């Protein structure tokens, strides 16, 4: 017996987000998404190959003219210390992306662990973890970052830690909700009866099904982290050893009208980068939850 009868079921709600036939199509459906992805790819490329695409030392030391406008020698002009803007913008991508991606990654790791434990086990563990998360969440992200850095000094590492510490609670709450719902599923019961331990169940049965919101929030967190880093640098609290777009904006304050290129390009860079991550995060959300299916 048994011919296969494939039932015309709709796309499953909790499902295989990436193996889903339409995922790539849905993701790339809108031209803005494609542009955003292309831009981010370009950014990563620039970050990696920074020395190769820039002719000047971003930290200065040459003897170029000061405040020189756009020219064939300096594509984006120079700043008040004679530093090549193009070189500084390109090198700035390194800090932005490093801080952005690394802090989001740390936030995801901490958030997923906390959220999964809270959602799966419930009880006092849940209460404890969520109270801790709530505490962190009530702190205004930027203000706290400001205070932390002002108190403990600044470095890329410290920035990553601080930003991650402020970003993990939101992720934890979302993960907790997903995990708690999935933990009630019958296939989790079936896994327990099949002999799987709690850890294996969380990692192999539940989390893969909860991946969608984690991915979306993660990408939005990257955008937020980049913004915070730029803001901190703007206030002079960034890492002085690295070029940062925010610091560039700080430098440009006095020259807003006389040397517009000093502020325009780093500003544009920040805006476009944050926008692109937001667009991609949004598109991922649409692509991973087709037709508003979510369980």
């Amino acid at each position, binding site marked *: *017996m*048994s011919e*296969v*009868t*494939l*039932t015309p*079921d709709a*796309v*499953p709600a*909790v*499902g*295989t987000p990436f193996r889903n036939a339409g995922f790539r199509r849905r993701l790339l459906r809108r031209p803005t998404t494609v542009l955003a992805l292309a831009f981010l790819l370009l950014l990563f490329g620039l970050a990696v190959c920074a020395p190769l695409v820039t002719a000047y030392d971003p930290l200065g030391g040459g003897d170029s003219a000061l405040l020189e406008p756009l020219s064939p020698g300096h594509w984006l002009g120079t700043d008040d210390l004679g530093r090549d803007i193009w070189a500084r913008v390109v090198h700035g991508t390194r800090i932005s992306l490093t801080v952005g991606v690394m802090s989001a990654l740390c936030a995801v790791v901490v958030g997923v662990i906390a959220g999964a434990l809270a959602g799966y086990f419930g009880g006092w563990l849940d209460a404890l973890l969520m109270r801790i998360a709530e505490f962190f969440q009530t702190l205004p992200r930027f203000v706290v970052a400001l205070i932390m850095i002002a108190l403990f000094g600044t470095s890329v590492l410290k920035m990553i830690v601080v930003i991650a510490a402020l970003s993990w609670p939101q992720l934890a709450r979302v993960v907790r909700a997903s995990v708690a719902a999935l933990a009630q*599923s*019958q*296939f989790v*019961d*079936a*896994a*327990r*009866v*099949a*002999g*799987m331990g709690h850890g*294996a169940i969380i990692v192999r*049965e539940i989390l*893969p*099904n909860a991946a969608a919101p984690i991915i979306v929030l993660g990408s939005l967190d990257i955008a937020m982290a980049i913004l915070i880093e730029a803001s901190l640098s703007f206030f002079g609290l960034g890492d002085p050893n690295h070029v940062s777009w925010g610091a560039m904006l700080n430098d440009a304050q006095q020259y807003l009208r006389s040397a517009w290129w000093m502020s325009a390009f780093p500003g544009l860079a920040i805006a476009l980068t944050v926008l692109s991550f937001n667009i991609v995060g949004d598109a991922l959300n649409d692509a991973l939850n087709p037709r508003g299916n979510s369980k």
Partner: protein
Amino acid sequence: MNAAATPPLLEARDLSRLFPVRSSGGLFRARQMQRAVDRVSLSIRAGEVLALVGESGSGKTTLGRMLLGLTAPSEGVILYKGMDIAAQSGEAARNFRREVQVVFQDTGGSLNPRRTIGQSVALPLTYHRGLERGAASAEVDALLDQVGLPPAHFRHRLPHELSGGQRQRVGIARALASNPALIIADEPVSALDVSVRAQILRLMFDLQRERRLSYLFITHDLGVVRAMADRVMVMHQGRVVESGDADAVLNAPRDAYTQRLLAATPVPDPSRQRNPH
């Protein structure tokens, strides 16, 4: 029937499950407790089929979960092969887990939507029998064959590509993977089409004969009880109201609730209508 000769495979004594009533209690008052399962005792022997009948709110599903070790009982004790499963640790507990398996009602929800059929069926093989990839793979093929799903075609499919009846067969294959002695089936055919139900029940019957399995059928469908069960227990609001030989209870029910249940079950024969229309 040799009653006293063999000890029961699974035995439950005065099993209860309490849960707090939501609206009761407060900061200084104790919460009121309600009994989803109220002091139920039962026993299943090797090779026997027991049916647990009840409607929603009868406690039959909660009882099933306790017997599977998925929910802890508030009171009472469960003995498997004479040993208290709550007191067991390590080896004994693992044996219980391995030998008591489950088939669920909701074929869509009981299979991880991201795992292929082959992977789902292989789960117990890995965790209960410690089989390596190659041996597990061969065993998965054998199991899929046994339930009527040609492995070549079905191994790599995802649950949503199968029909309800096919998914249920997968559930049965997974339950058999660990070589269980007892399978607890919670409404195994309720969600299936009428013409498919008989297929699945027939399959379960054949498997029982071949492997000398015991079944605990949790169901509200008296037709399933008549077809499959040796003995039946009728539950109502957490308590057992009647139990005994399946045919005897269903032909001559003594409890009022059992009688109501039988009277309410529609009969597919227009000439025998109690409510003339």
